[in-house]
Every structure is written in C-alpha cells, then in structure tokens.
C-alpha cells in the first residue's frame, strides 16, 4: 500500500508516475509586528527589495513562456505591473512609516484596502482582478518571509508539478516538456489549472487538501487523474498496476482519436449526429479534429460579458459569420442570449432579483430588451448567408413567448430584405426544451418550430426543484430520476410525431451510462463538450440499438432512481468493462 492515498478532483484525464516537485506551498500566517522607531527605512527597503525580486522572477517567467501558451503571457505582464504599482508598494510603505508596522502586515493592509475599493466596482470582470492583486501580494509575502530565496530551480528531469495553488506564472516558469502532470491543494472543477492542463493535454488533479502535509519534494507519486487520486510512495504492486493503466489509457486515447472521424453509428446501423457545445470560435479546431458533426450549441453570451455596453451588430456579425464559414458545410446552432442567473450582463445586474434562476433571464430578458435581441437576430441572420446556421431560443415556457420571438424574427427578416442584405430564408428555428412546462406542451410547440434541443442540465434542476450548486441538495441531482427519463422520452416522441428532430445537449449526453437510454429513445443528435466527442463516439460505435431499446423499456418500468441507477450501471458496465475505467459518470456521486 502507498504511504498515503489523497483524494482530489480530476480536471484533466490521464495517469502519470513521477517525482513530486513543489513550486510553492501555503505561506505561514502573516506576522503582525510593531517595528522599533528608526527601523522604518530599512523595513521599507526590505519590502521594495522583495517586490523587485518578484518582478524579476515574473519577467523571467514571461520571457520563457513557450509559444503555445503565448495567450497566458499577458497575465504575467499585468502581474508585473501590479507588482510595481504605486497603489500597492508605495501605499504599504506609507503604512510602515505611519504605523510602525512590519512590511508583511503593511502589505496585507494595502491589499485589503485595494480589495475594499474594488469590491464597489460594478463590472464583475474588473472586480475579480482583485484575485491578481492577491496572487502578486502572495509572491511578495513569500519573498519577505525569506523562503524560496533562491530562484525557482528548473528540474533536470520530468516531474509531477505540485503547488498550493498554481498561478499561470508558476506553471510557465518551467519548461512544459518537463511537466508530466499537475496536482494542487486549491482549485475546483473550473480553475485555471484545469484549463491549462487540458490545453497541454497532461493529467491534473486539483483540490487535494492534504497535499502539502503529505508530500515532500522528490517523493515518488502516482497521479491518477481518472479517479482524482494521488498515491504517495506507492508499493511495487501499485506501481505495476498503474504503469499498466497508464499504458492502456494512452493506447485508448490514441485509438479513439484515430477512429474519431468515423460516423457515429451503432453496430446495427442507427446513426446520430455528435455535435459540440462551444462558446468561442477558437474551439472550432478541437471540434473538427475530434470528429464533431458541427456545433449543436453555440453559447452567444461571451461577447456580451465583461463590458458595459452591448456589442454592435457588426461585431456580432463578424463573430457569427466567421464561425459559420469555418464550420461550413457542417451546421452551427446559435442559441440567442441566455443571460441571467449565473451570467449577469451589466445592464441587467442592476436588477435586484431575489431568485434570478426564476427571474428575467434568457428569452424573457430578450423580449424585454428588444434592442439587444433584434441586433443579435440581425447578426445571426446575416451570418446564415455564410454557412449552415440554425437559431435556437432558450427558456421557452409557452407558445406565446415562442410566437413573440418568431414575430420579432420575421420583422428583422423584413428589415434585411428592405436593406438588401443576404440571409438564408430557410434557416431552421428551434427551441430549448428545458422547463417542465415546455415538456408538457411539447406537441403544440413542435408544430411551430423546426427542431428541439433538450437542455438536460436545466431540465433536471427545474423538474426536481434543486440547485445543483447548492451542496445541501446536490445529492438530489439525479439525471436518471424516473421523472427526467419520462420527460425526455415524452419530448422525443412529441417531436417525432410532428416530424421534427431532437438533439440532447447537456452532460447526460456525454455520460456513457446515460447515453444508451437516450439512444433507445431514438434521438437524432447529441451536443457535448468538444473534448468528450472522440470517447463518446467510440462507445456509440460499439453500442447495439436493440439493447438500448430493451434497457430503456426496463428503465421506464422502474419506479425509483436507485433501481434505475443499479440496473443501468450493471448493464453498461458489463458491456464496456475496460473502457469505462477511463470515464467518470454523473451516476457515481450517489454511491
């Protein structure tokens, strides 16, 4: 048995075995000391020296940024500017002189003063820049305490990079070819470390709270970024097992990549489209390389975030037409603005909504702010002349909303006709089915649109009445709850009766245990995260439609979610026992 097995969150899949190397550890608590009279000058000098050292470290890190991470280098540049900002160091120096406190304490106070000033800023992007100030101050504190006095030594062999928290500068100060994997004590599913690791395609586990206490530099560790484990000082048997697993995983990755451009077709010839959910044009190459059949959900919110004024029609048109052109002849589905709840536009953030998830969001927001909506519709319509575009309205709760939205769309079409601007007159128009009300009237809705897209993430939350982000009730987030399975089935049947197609987007579609049930319903397409496409296509190509239908029948006859989960897990696991070790499932949480 390993000396210790630590649990964290896997954010970039894979396995690696190597020696641990810490770039930073949690600093000790700040010292709060009063300095003797006359010591202020030397204390200020100590602070300035520390800041200047950190600036030099950052400059070195920036100059060594490898070409593939150039985009991240701008972050280091702003950290350098923060490091020499008069608001930080001069303000802290003033505090040393005025209050006769030590440099650490003064710096801490200066940071808190900046944090207080920034917390009043309305723009959420600017407000969050306080994180950068804290990251820089943390480096200066480390210098002040005198640890890591020597410059970060580049390792002479490939290492497992460990850190309390990994800032971009930390990660980029090291040659990336030497990093086998990451592990950090801080961080969650969406942290920067995960993004970085996925773009470098190396395994990463974050949120390993006991990491610093349990691992020393040079310890042999296994990073299991399939299950989110760190094995410290493993024994011979574990080493043998993991060497084997690593080999299998790498082979598996290669084989699914090789086969990813084959059609998404079951063994008995049932074919669906496997599309991608994306929000940036930059993600298109990953979609195409992974064998995606276009983009089933383009989230259009990004261009509207972090700014005070809405983007112009021309800006949106540039973005949308570029996307449509790049993907052509594959299709791209533009979902109109889905702001509210978690993603506030600054115009909207002034609304005091006690319950934003049930508030003025998505299509409701657009129908209220028609200037923004019309501008977006014009841009999407104009982009439709450059490729195969479709339009998708989110959060439709009833026929009236749909008719209002379509009425505005027709007015915008007439404007474009009058202006002589080209667009695709046959651009398909669909709706997101993600509210229980839309499920129940899906047959009526299907008569007025060209396709449905079932947003399972929201449908589960609204149907089961739970907020997934709320840890007290997240155990109730059950994708295979009988009510959810029946809802999806009902929507698919309504759509097919009316002769329109159905796409399922949401995590359910990329869960290898849930996918066969959706297939059994004879859905037409799924839309999933781009990195999940090769693996899901591989599973799909070895699935049998008749078995999926049989499994669906069994699931529909069960009345509790635990029965369903047990039944599904056994059936699917027996089908793909080896492959499934490389997947995580939403069903795992209730074990």
């Amino acid at each position: 048995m390993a000396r210790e097995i630590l649990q964290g969150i896997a954010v970039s899949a894979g396995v690696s075995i190597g020696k641990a190397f810490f770039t930073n550890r949690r600093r000790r608590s700040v010292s709060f000391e009063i300095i003797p009279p006359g010591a202020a000058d030397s204390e200020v000098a100590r602070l300035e020296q520390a800041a200047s050292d950190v600036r030099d470290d950052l400059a070195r890190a920036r100059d060594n940024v490898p070409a593939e991470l150039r985009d991240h280098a701008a972050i280091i540049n702003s950290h350098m500017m923060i490091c020499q900002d008069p608001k930080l160091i001069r303000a802290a120096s003033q505090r040393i002189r005025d209050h006769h406190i030590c440099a650490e304490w003064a710096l801490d106070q200066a940071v808190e003063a900046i944090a207080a000033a920034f917390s009043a800023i309305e723009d959420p992007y600017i407000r969050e820049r306080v994180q950068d100030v804290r990251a820089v101050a943390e480096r200066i504190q480390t210098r002040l305490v005198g640890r890591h006095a020597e410059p970060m030594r580049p390792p002479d062999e490939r290492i497992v990079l460990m850190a309390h928290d990994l800032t971009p500068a930390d990660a980029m100060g090291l040659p990336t070819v030497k990093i086998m994997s990451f592990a950090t004590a801080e961080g969650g599913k969406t942290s920067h470390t995960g993004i970085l690791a996925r773009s470098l395609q190396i395994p990463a586990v974050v949120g390993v709270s006991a990491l610093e206490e349990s691992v020393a530099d040079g310890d042999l560790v296994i990073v299991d970024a399939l299950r989110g484990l760190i094995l410290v000082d493993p024994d011979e048997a574990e080493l043998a097992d993991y060497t084997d697993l690593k080999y299998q995983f790498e082979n598996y990755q290669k084989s699914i990549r090789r086969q990813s451009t084959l059609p998404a077709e079951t063994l008995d010839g049932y074919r669906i489209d496997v599309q991608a959910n994306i929000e940036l044009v930059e993600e298109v190459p990953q979609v195409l390389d992974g064998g995606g059949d276009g983009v089933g959900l383009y989230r259009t919110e990004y261009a509207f975030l972090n700014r005070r004024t809405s983007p112009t029609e021309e800006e949106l048109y540039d973005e949308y037409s570029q996307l449509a052109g790049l993907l052509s002849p594959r299709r791209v589905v533009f979902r109109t603005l889905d702001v509210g709840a978690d993603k506030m536009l600054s115009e909207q953030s002034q609304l005091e909504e006690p319950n934003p998830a049930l508030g003025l969001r998505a299509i409701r927001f657009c129908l209220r702010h028609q200037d923004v909506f019309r501008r977006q519709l014009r841009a999407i319509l104009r982009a439709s002349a450059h490729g195969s575009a479709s339009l998708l309205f989110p959060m439709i709760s009833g026929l009236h909303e749909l008719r209002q939205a379509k009425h505005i769309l027709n007015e915008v079409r007439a404007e474009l006709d009058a202006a002589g601007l080209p667009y695709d007159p046959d651009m398909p128009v669909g709706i997101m089915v993600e509210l229980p009300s839309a499920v129940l009237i899906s047959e009526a809705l299907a008569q007025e649109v060209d396709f449905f897209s079932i947003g399972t993430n929201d449908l589960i939350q609204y149907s089961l009445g739970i907020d997934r982000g709320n840890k007290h009730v997240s155990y109730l987030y059950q994708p295979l709850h009988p009510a959810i399975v029946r809802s999806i089935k009902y929507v698919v049947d309504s759509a097919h009766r009316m002769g329109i197609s159905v796409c399922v987007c949401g995590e359910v579609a990329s869960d290898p245990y849930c996918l066969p049930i959706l297939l059994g319903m004879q859905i037409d397409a799924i839309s999933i995260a781009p990195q999940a496409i090769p693996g899901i296509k591989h599973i799909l190509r070895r699935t049998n439609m008749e078995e999926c239908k049989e499994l669906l029948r069994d699931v529909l006859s069960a009345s509790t979610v635990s029965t369903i989960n047990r039944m599904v897990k056994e059936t699917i696991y027996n089908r793909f026992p080896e492959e499934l070790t490389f997947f995580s499932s939403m069903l795992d949480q209730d074990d």
Partner: protein
Amino acid sequence: MQEPIEETQEGLTVTVCVANDQGLHARPAARLAQEAQKFGAELFLAMDGMEVDAKSILDILSLAAAKGTRLTLRGVGADARHALEHLSALFRNRFREE
C-alpha cells in the same frame, strides 16, 4: 482625428477615447501604466470627474472604462507633451503591440 493637446492651468490635457472592444481591461491597462511609467511627468487619467494616476494599473482598472468612453489625459512636468502624444497614440492604436 487626433484631439489637440490643450494647455490649462493644471498642465497639459488631451481627450482620448477607448476604442478596443473590451474596454480598459487588464491587458491595455497594464500597457498604459507601463508606458506612462517611462516618463518623468506626473500623468493622470480622468473620467466623469474622477481622476486617477495613469502610472497605476490598479487605478486605471478602477475606472472600469468601457469601449467608447471618453477620458482626459493630463500631464504635468518637463516631458508632459511627449508623454501625452505617446499615450494618446496608444489609445488610437487600441493598445496593439507594435
């Protein structure tokens, strides 16, 4: 369409406009402060009656100036005119690296 540099009692001033899409976010703010620090003159940036230090990235960020915002640059000191010319050119070029 460069705005003229004007002489006032408080030093030289020039009006600039934020032309880049995302406004004065971290990257342009860093670049502005970096360039401003190269001059000996005291340099300030004003918006809606609030004036901040143009050599401080944190001050610049705190304006949260969006695209289209008009700001006043003010400089006091020997190389103020040169500084204002240089910084207003940065705004016109949307802070692109040369």
